[in-house]
């Protein structure tokens, strides 16, 4: 869902955006991964070969895809779902920027719905990386979620964005 919104926001911002996902046979509850490429040029590859930004919301995902982060790339993780081992080996390569946010806890306590944790992550990522403008992401969210939940999701997004702005200085 977050991957779809990010890609949709990319096209709203006038960029090419490709989103793919991989998932198991389960209809719900299995592992899933979404790859998003946002580019000014034509996109030929299906999934990025090196990740500029990796948003991790499960421990197995973190462990599996951490090595795929590019030099100077960013790891953004939900600290309620993922424990980051800070040893050099485990935290990606030396040039990886890491940002943790307690997204699930915020989603639960501030919004009463754990499911908006992914939208909080999107807001957080938007503020930290600027990959797609918050305006485009807000519009993409409004057009993608069920009408009754638009306000809830936008508030969650804004909360994540605010948390990200506070940490902006840490990214080069």
């Amino acid at each position, binding site marked *: 869902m977050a991957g779809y919104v990010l890609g949709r926001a990319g096209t709203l911002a006038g960029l090419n955006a490709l989103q793919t996902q991989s998932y198991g046979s389960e209809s719900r509850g299995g592992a899933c991964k979404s790859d998003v490429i946002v580019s000014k040029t034509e996109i030929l*590859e299906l999934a990025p070969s090196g990740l500029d930004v990796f948003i991790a919301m499960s421990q197995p995902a973190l462990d599996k895809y951490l090595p795929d982060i590019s030099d100077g790339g960013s790891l953004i993780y939900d600290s309620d779902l993922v424990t980051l081992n800070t040893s050099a080996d485990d935290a990606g390569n030396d040039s990886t920027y890491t940002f943790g946010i307690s997204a699930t806890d915020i989603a639960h306590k501030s919004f009463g719905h754990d499911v908006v944790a992914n939208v909080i992550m999107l807001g957080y990522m938007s503020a930290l990386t600027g990959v797609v403008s918050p305006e485009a992401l807000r519009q993409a969210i409004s057009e993608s979620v069920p009408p009754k939940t638009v306000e809830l999701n936008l508030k969650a997004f804004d909360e994540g964005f605010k948390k990200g702005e506070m940490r902006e200085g840490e990214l080069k």
Partner: protein
Amino acid sequence: MKADPAGVLAGAHYLDGDFACGEGAMAAGCRFVGGYPITPSTEVVERMSRRFPMMGGIFIQMEDELASMAAVVGASWTGTKSMTVTSGPGFSLMMENIGLGAMMETPCVVVNVQRGGPSTGLPTMVGQADVMQARWGSHGDYELIALSPQSPQEAFDLTITAFNLSEIYRVPVMFMLDECVGHMTEKVVIPKAEDIEIVPRRLTKKPPGEFFPYRVNGNSVPEFARAGDGYRFHTTGLTHDERGYPVMSADCQEVCVKRLLDKINDNADDIIMLEEEDIDGADVVVIAFGITARVARMGIELAAKKGIKIGFIRMITLWPFPEKRIRELAGKIKAFVVPEINYGQMVLEVERCAGGKAATVSVPHGGGGVHDPDVIRDAIVGAAK
């Protein structure tokens, strides 16, 4: 004629290939789908079943794929543009009635979002190994048309083309997506209804009594009369005369079946769509289709850095096969390189048409993923030597 606005969701969207295919079908005027949903094609019918009530369309979830294809053939004979949607295991089960559709000259579209096979194989992962089955899956001699899109935008555009071709040639058209294209999400621009060209069913103007359902006059595709319009006639999978009645003879077989082949082969130049890049002066020509066409371009970019002159042909039409073009090029180049997500299917056609005048290099991939562009690069480099 122009598309019915009721089925056209004009505007810019962010859709996956399956949804885009469903939108293309509705824009093309499809108003009946009989199917048995199967991963990774399910989203096509999900989309259509949700939107169909708004335009008077009907989706029936049939008991299986044999029934699905039978329902599609039957629905088409009412004059309704009809489609079914499936993946490998279901495609196998549809083969009998695809043959019936070809023999009765029934316009319809069969969407196959290909996954890894054989059998149930890899339900959620990509394959391109049904392309020979699309051509040869049903028994007997017949010709049909198969198209392969490389993006969600093309999944929309070519679904309309598939319906139009099925009407022009009165033939089942196989629409061969692959799981990657079906499940990738990109921007899809849907034009306004007045900008979408639709081919309607070519109905006869002859009155009942003077109309022969399989009589052709100079045109190799007969006119159509809908069931329920007052024409009493017979149509069958048996070899038939121009009245549609069974005639068990070699003479009738020659007339009846030969025309099924001729109507496609004689018009192959009009049907075949290829996208060509940098062919002039090329030493090696890469031929690919569907998602592999996108990945192949990356391999070509890598190999071009080594100074090799590389041309590229993307097959949008898989069947009829672009025989003439391959024969033309075979005498001028060193080699064809054919990456595909199977263990070597379309490469056999390329090799046949190259006729020994150019080398043919297969770049197979078993399914479950796309090629590593480096592998395609290495194949090109090897072929250029």
